[in-house]
């Protein structure tokens, strides 16, 4: 066998797979979104945006992303710095912090349902402490705000781990000498963190934020478990149009919208957190 051809033989299955089951389906879904019965049209998008639930859906999804991602970033950064500062028990603590990484979003929704449902643990505590006389209905159709808070907590709980792991890996790549040099010049902990660690962590921050933002727009099962249809989000509406309303074209239009938002944010963070070639370690 020609040795020059070997890498191509090795790559062929993966490439073929991604072309057939990743690139081609996206062409298909784009075509479905921009056409109806074989003719090119924007009707699907008009139907999507014209639906009475659409403004709520878009606002909920965006608001969730805007609130959840910064919270997660702050928490993930604190967890990663704490883990990096530990001398003993580092691996055990890391494992505990990383546990939610392996937990399905549906399971996370159910876990927080155990806390927030009317006969749940939060109500048990509130009544036990005498804060309220009666169990409060946190997840009813009239309590959008508390559903929203529950979803935020569940999302922060579930998906902070993925950011933390990326940041811990990134902090491991930063040479210790940089921080030590800053220390010699009298920089305190906070100053070293903001002036040395954060700038050098930029590539990892970029990866973590992009990954998390994209996942934030895909939020689905957590909301389904906690709020049912009381808190419509983009992915849930996609599912609803595909299944309950049996309209593939409008579902595809939703998919294109999610895709467009994801790509826009990816490009934004690629640009905003770019690392000049000379500054790479």
């Amino acid at each position: 066998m020609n040795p020059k051809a070997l890498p191509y033989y090795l790559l062929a299955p993966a490439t073929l797979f991604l072309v057939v089951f990743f690139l081609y389906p996206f062409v298909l879904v784009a075509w479905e979104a921009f056409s109806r019965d074989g003719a090119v049209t924007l009707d699907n998008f008009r139907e999507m945006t014209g639906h009475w639930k659409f403004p709520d859906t878009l606002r909920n999804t965006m608001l969730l992303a805007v609130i959840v991602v910064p919270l997660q970033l702050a928490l993930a950064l604190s967890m990663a710095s704490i883990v990096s500062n530990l001398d003993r028990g580092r691996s055990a603590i890391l494992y505990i912090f990383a546990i939610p990484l392996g937990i399905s979003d549906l399971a996370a929704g159910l876990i927080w349902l155990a806390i927030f449902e009317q006969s749940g643990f939060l109500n048990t505590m509130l009544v036990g402490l005498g804060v309220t006389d009666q169990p409060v209905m946190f997840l009813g159709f009239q309590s959008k705000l508390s559903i929203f808070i529950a979803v935020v907590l569940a999302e922060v709980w579930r998906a902070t781990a993925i950011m933390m792991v990326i940041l811990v890996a990134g902090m491991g790549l930063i040479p210790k000498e940089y921080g030590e040099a800053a220390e010699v010049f009298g920089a305190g902990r906070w100053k070293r963190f903001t002036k040395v660690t954060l700038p050098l962590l930029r590539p990892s921050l970029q990866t973590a934020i992009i990954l998390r933002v994209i996942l934030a727009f895909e939020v689905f099962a957590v909301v389904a478990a906690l709020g049912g249809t009381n808190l419509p989000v983009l992915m849930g509406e996609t599912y609803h149009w595909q299944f309950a309303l049996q309209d593939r074209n409008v579902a595809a239009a939703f998919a294109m919208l999610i895709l467009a938002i994801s790509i826009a944010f990816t490009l934004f963070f690629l640009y905003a957190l770019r690392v000049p070639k000379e500054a790479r370690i």
Partner: protein
Amino acid sequence: MTAVTSDAPATAYPEVRKARNWLLIAIVVVLCVWVLLPIYLLLVNALSSPNEVTGFPKRFWPSFDTGSLAFFVNFAGVAKALWNSVLVAVFTMIMSIGIGAPAGYALSRFDFPGKEAFRFLVLMTRAFPLPLLALPLAVMFIRTGLDDTAFGLAIVHTTLALPFAVLITFSLFSGIPVELEEAAWTLGCTRFQAFWKVVMPLALPGIAASAVFAFTISWNEVFAAAVLTIENRTLTAFLLQSLNVSPLYLKFAGGFALVVPALIFIFAVRKYLFAMWGIANR
């Protein structure tokens, strides 16, 4: 001199350092409780009788009654859903490693035109909301007879797991010196023999870890599973579609069934988590 440079001025006083240590420990404890307490509460519910789960107020420790779990296991469709979840995850594991590992090896050992294009294709998958692929594939699968099969769903899950498999195996093979292989060649091994007898044994634990990771990705996936399966639902699809109609104790027992394997998986691959994400940074 060394003692002075390794201690910042503020940490030179033992009391200050001690206070800081206690603060650190307190924060670590709070964060551990934040992560573990919700899981514990789910376990309490899953290990209590149906009456206790729907009752109020709740107890904060389980009664170790298997009523909820027994109800769940005997509920129509659950056994099949569990079996389907395992089946899809095993298919996903085999496909993503079978296709991904050769690609990872090629990326680590060769320089060739088109390498960057392939890496871009792999990285691009991460900028896309992949579960949405289920929508167009649903149509494609109906035409090819793959609709509502474990194999069809495994294909979608493989697109989720494949990029990780490629990047993880790439980093694994990069960590094994090429000199070892070259030594085997000079001793008369063919390229394949050298790979099989020298590289493979060294890479096996890491490959196993990425296989477990692929399994977990498939086991946990909800959206594509719910879109693509109707009769042959996986556990996640089953739980999602019965959310409106199922009693609380069924939900919590179902959550228990989802969480416990995931905990074991993450424990099994804990050593490799950071290697995986470290390389994913690039």
